[in-house]
């Protein structure tokens, strides 16, 4: 297993290099100085630009520029944001807690919803309740997340006034106080529900099918023969076996949450990585854009790798080497 994981990790390196080359080429195709953000875009004096270009090494051959950029990048030198005039690294660090909070809350919501629905459906397959859950999940899967988000804001924020419709925290709340954290949770809940509901369907169906399959196995028959109550069989014996494969979904969720966060954060004007990304496109803040593209690509790659490795860890029958 360890051997396999190491091999997969090593196999990731060429992919990372390829992606970084693509990002670098994209950056070079963009107008202006898109990597360092050191050249003042408002200063149009040709002599100033020429001097800065020479100083930043933009007249070097492309491979040299690439190596300089990538070696800086691994050390956390992401350049300077042209919009905020602060290092991109600090900018990203400032937004990451918000995105993490949103992502983790969304995951928890997905797990709770999927567990409740999946366990109910798995215990009573082909009943009215099971079909209703399947129907609900089908609709949730088909509705585009941004349409769901718009409807959620309209209904829960504007009509019912249950949740705030924008931002990540009440401006009046004092930082560090109990109200501050409460307000943060209150702000994150609605986007998290929308984001979490997207992936609930696949979890639920998987759990349902796995429970049905497991309930026909020999260990269940043995437990029943010994007189174990059905409730205990389902909640302890079967569930324990059915939970494990769900772990593999975590890796794929990683990638899905990244894409989902861009849309959800923008609609809810929630200040996280996704919103920063879109704002950096609209305000032509190329250094931020490029750093984020690199970062998000890396996270997606990492998520896919995690899913693959977990798959092998969880199910010893799968030996990919």
């Amino acid at each position, binding site marked *: 297993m360890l051997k396999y994981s190491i091999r997969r990790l090593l196999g990731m390196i060429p992919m990372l290099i390829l*992606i970084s080359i693509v990002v670098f080429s994209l950056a070079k195709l963009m107008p202006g100085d898109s990597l360092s953000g050191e050249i003042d875009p408002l200063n149009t004096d040709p002599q100033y630009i020429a001097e800065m270009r020479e100083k930043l090494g933009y007249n070097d051959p492309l491979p040299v520029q690439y190596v300089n950029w990538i070696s800086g990048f691994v050390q956390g030198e992401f350049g300077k944001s042209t919009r905020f005039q602060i290092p991109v690294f600090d900018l990203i660090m400032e937004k990451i807690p918000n995105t993490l909070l949103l992502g983790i809350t969304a995951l928890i919501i997905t797990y709770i919803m999927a567990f409740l629905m999946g366990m109910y459906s798995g215990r009573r397959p082909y009943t009215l309740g099971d079909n209703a859950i399947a129907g609900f999940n089908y609709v949730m899967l088909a509705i585009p997340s941004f349409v769901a988000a718009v409807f959620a804001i*309209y209904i829960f924020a504007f009509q019912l006034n249950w949740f705030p419709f924008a931002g990540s925290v009440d401006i009046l709340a004092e930082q560090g106080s109990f109200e501050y954290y409460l307000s943060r949770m209150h702000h994150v809940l609605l986007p998290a529900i929308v984001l979490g509901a997207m992936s609930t369907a696949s979890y639920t169906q998987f759990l349902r099918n796995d429970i049905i399959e497991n309930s026909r196995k020999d260990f269940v028959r043995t437990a029943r023969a010994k007189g174990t109550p059905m409730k205990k069989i389902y909640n302890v014996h079967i569930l324990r076996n059915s939970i494990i494969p769900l772990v593999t979904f975590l890796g794929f969720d990683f*990638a899905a949450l990244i894409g989902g966060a861009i849309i959800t954060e923008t609609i809810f004007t929630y200040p996280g990585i996704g919103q920063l990304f879109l704002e950096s496109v609209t305000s032509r803040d190329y250094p931020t854009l490029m750093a984020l593209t690199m970062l998000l690509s890396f996270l*997606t790659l990492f998520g896919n790798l995690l899913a693959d490795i977990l798959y092998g860890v969880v199910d010893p029958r799968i030996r990919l080497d």
Partner: protein
Amino acid sequence: MASSTTITQQKKPERSLSPWQIARRKFIRNKLAMISSFFIVLVTLMSLSAPFLAPVLSPLPDISKVNIGAMSIEPNGEHLLGTDKSGRDVLTRLFYGGRISLLVGFSATLIVITLGTAVGALAGFFGGFIDSILMRFTDFVLNFPFLVFVIVLNTILYGIVDGLWVLIMVIGALSWGGVARLVRSKVLAEKENEYILAALSIGCSPFKVITKHLLPNVVSTIIVQGTLIFATMIVIESALSYLGFGVPQATPSWGNMLSSANEPDVLQGKPWIWMPPAIIITLTILSINFIGEGLKDALNPKSLR
């Protein structure tokens, strides 16, 4: 008399149904899929006939003209779905928007299916070196954070090529990975059959074996997958347009119309502007998915219904 009819019946043995006929019967019996098909046909026809329908249904058939005198009118007898903030008729824009959304969805699906099938079939059929090169490339495409790259590429190409086709090409070029993997796995299983060996041994060229013998046996999978991808592509188009990175703002598409919901006063107080596109997007996606599921059932020889 009775005996003569039995004789004629015996003379004409009933022909067994072809696989396509069986599939068609199964599909027609599937109510949900049939209702969905009618809905999609209706939406397509309305979108196609938008230039003729618009002058009949609305007093303001021009979708690009701003009408200061008719801004934000609630739905009434004259404007069946009201007008938006620039005084354009919502129903008319909905019809014209359907043209763009369906066109983008359909063209992108064509690109995805063509690229995916070609790569998957070549990799699966030849195997070995070609397979590993092509599949590495597929992994590479699949590992991109899709939305991120579409937005970045769109920003770069914007203004160089016409906006609509940039979008179609970019989303098409980045989404074929899944199809390629699927087709490859199907081809791998199919090429072990003896008729492929027979075809090769009588001297058929690889191209002919792939197009004449392999692909017809994989085509049902591709059709089902294509339907589901069509739905995904419409979602991607409207999501990108909603965020402002898709179809240029001046052209009405469902996503562009929905993006008016970004303004809090429209979202809160003028639901007739954003609700129609939201509802029609959802219904279209649901219908296409139901059709896809119906096709999957109908084309699967193992499902007996």
